């Protein structure tokens, strides 16, 4: 299942993704309700955190109200009407990618903007990509292969 992957080598921490995420979903600007978040740590790291759309999502497992489900398409979805706002999903998620919306009181997470994530379009350094774990692994394999290749020519 594809998710919004962030390459920490490229992320600059500009948080444009947060603002367009909230603009798209809520028609206001407020990073505290963005479904993608930039985490900056010192001295030299920036990375976004958002839902990995896990194959076997811990949030689905722990939800006492059955309000989170894994769709056939792969998307992990919150059913607002069922969500009781207990927040165990936030406790279960290893990334902090799902949490309670402070105004609505409902579990909130990345919904991939219905398949066309806005954050990716506004990511200037190209750190964000819609890709499945397999896609990330392919990139990693090629990078590893280049690193390990014997030097030829030149």
């Amino acid at each position, binding site marked *: 299942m594809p998710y919004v992957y962030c390459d920490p080598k490229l992320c600059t921490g500009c948080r444009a993704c947060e*603002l*367009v995420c909230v603009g798209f979903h809520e028609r206001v600007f407020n990073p505290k309700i963005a479904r993608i978040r930039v985490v900056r740590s010192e001295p030299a790291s*920036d990375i976004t955190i958002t839902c990995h759309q896990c194959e076997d999502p811990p949030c689905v497992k722990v939800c006492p109200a059955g309000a989170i489900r894994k769709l056939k398409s792969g998307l992990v979805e919150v059913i607002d009407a069922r969500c009781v706002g207990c927040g165990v999903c936030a406790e279960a998620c290893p990334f902090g990618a799902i949490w309670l919306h402070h105004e609505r009181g409902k579990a909130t997470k990345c919904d991939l903007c219905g398949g066309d994530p806005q954050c990716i379009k506004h990511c200037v350094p190209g750190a964000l990509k819609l890709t499945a774990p397999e896609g990330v692994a392919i990139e990693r394999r090629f990078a590893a292969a280049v690193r390990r290749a014997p030097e030829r020519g030149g």
Partner: protein
Amino acid sequence: MAFTYKGYAGKYLRVDLTRGKTLELELPKEWARGYIGGSGMGARILYDEVPRNVGPLSPDNILIFATGPVTGTAYPPSGRYCVVTKAPLTGIWGEAHSGGYWGPELKYAGYDLIIIRGRAPRPMYLFIEDGKVELRGAKRLWGKNTAETTDAIEGELGRDVRVACIGMAGERLVKFACIINERSRAAGRTGVGAVMGSKRLKAVVVRGSGSIEVANFDRVWELTKEAHERYTGGEWGKASHDALYRFGTPGLVSWENEIGRLPTKGHRTGVFDRAADIGPEVFEREFIIHRRSCMNCRIQCKKVARVGRSGPYAGLITEGPEYETIVALGSNCLVSNFPAVMQVNQLCNLHGMDTISCGGAVSFAMECFERGALSERDIGFALGWGDGDAMVRLVGMMASREGVGDVLAEGIRAAAKRIGKGSGRWAIQVKGLEASGQDGRAHQSVGLTHAISVIGAAHLRALSSLDELDYRKTITERYGKARAAALGDRLSTKYKGMLVKDVEDLYAVVDALITCKYGTMWPPIFYFEDYAEILPAVTGVEEFGSVKELRIIAERIVNLKRAFNARLGLGRKDDTLPERMLKEPMPEGPAKGRVVDLKPMLDEYYRERGWDVRTGLQRRATLERFGLADVARDLKRVGALAK
């Protein structure tokens, strides 16, 4: 009740540190309508609330932290705030701008601006969170550097607070102390950090979860996408984005050296033979480990640098240095030891000092040493040109006000008076502010910019890249074909009074929105028309949709800031440059033999502004045209209105 205009938080805070009281107030509609926001609103407030007899470090001076209506929206590059105060370094209008995350967070916390006065009985810090305002004790933070302070406050309040604070320099009232937010972003110029220190205010901490609503969301969304395209694509957008993303502002070092405008050896020349040692290629190859950005920017000029394994600065990691820092502490001190420049950059971040003024003080001291005005005994060690290690020692002494550092911490205008021996001749400052990294001899209009700037010799108030890089197409579009050739020639003085006036007006709007000057200063792709699009979409104020109205607001702001200084007795005599730029011809490079031909540019500038050419004073009719009749009456009373 919600504020009439959108985009704004609609509220502001008054903090009285003497009494320990805070007060939340509705933002006056007239401030928004008449001055937009940022340093525009700051101008109205400072003019009204700081009469001329108030000393910058007295409790009666106020310190304003301001955002604008666009701050915190998705429209780029709007992650900024400004600080406005009567400046301790210069004694006049003071203004400093910073990026990072802090400005937007203030708005999410519910406030457009904060006005701070008084002096706390003991060190305090201010914490603002979603309409809750609290003054907290800062005794254990006093004496800590900006990184330690930020860490300690994050430890106390959570890692998602945004901290703007001062370091040792601000506490010790170093006259060019700055305010540092998020460890490395600086509201740098004019000594705003010393005002904070004088108020015993260690930090202003914000966290907010409020939403910013805009008047016409669909239009703002569309304009945001369009701005994204223009910043990252297009002929000039792409070129400058690519350069700034790759190298950051240090990319300018090689270009400025090429046109002979790289201040070197205390502005004695504009060419540095070792510029490559502190230039963009070596920066990227040997030092950059990470690329960063302020909030909501499409240019992304910030870099984190690391010094490699050998030498006295091995292992140092610092965000920066910027072009201005590299000039002030590198070429202008003849220092080609890049790690030493980075070390001072980090010291300035940690102690909270403006790198431009700090570098100006070092190069001044080096020239004092060369010419015998300061001896090895006075300083404690030899301070030869180009000695990076000595520079590092001297900067530490400035922050702690130790020995000669105490004299230099007053700024070079005051230091030259103290040292005497003719050292005022090589104190490269205007109105008490150390000159930024340009030289008017190689770029005439920037000479005028330095001379007329309301804060002193700074670049961000009115620098034009149109002539610096000869953007002929834009020049022609804006000012017509007949004037284009002269305007595009950086060594010509013709029409430069008009040009500088026009960019100063443009930046008055930019500093009110607030957005970054990338996009207006360089590349020059955003102009009044663009702000007449975004401002009404964000605020719903229809009048902001008129370029004519925006230009009137811009002139109102420029005139009000000018009046703040005029009321203090400033006029044409103060709109000048160091003798070095006016009388000593540039010794080499493409501008060889040139001095700044200031008089014709200054005359034209005053005429364009509608000010008296002989005295530089404002006229009643001019002030009334921009709705400043009250200011005219005020100036008349103190004899600062043109006859």
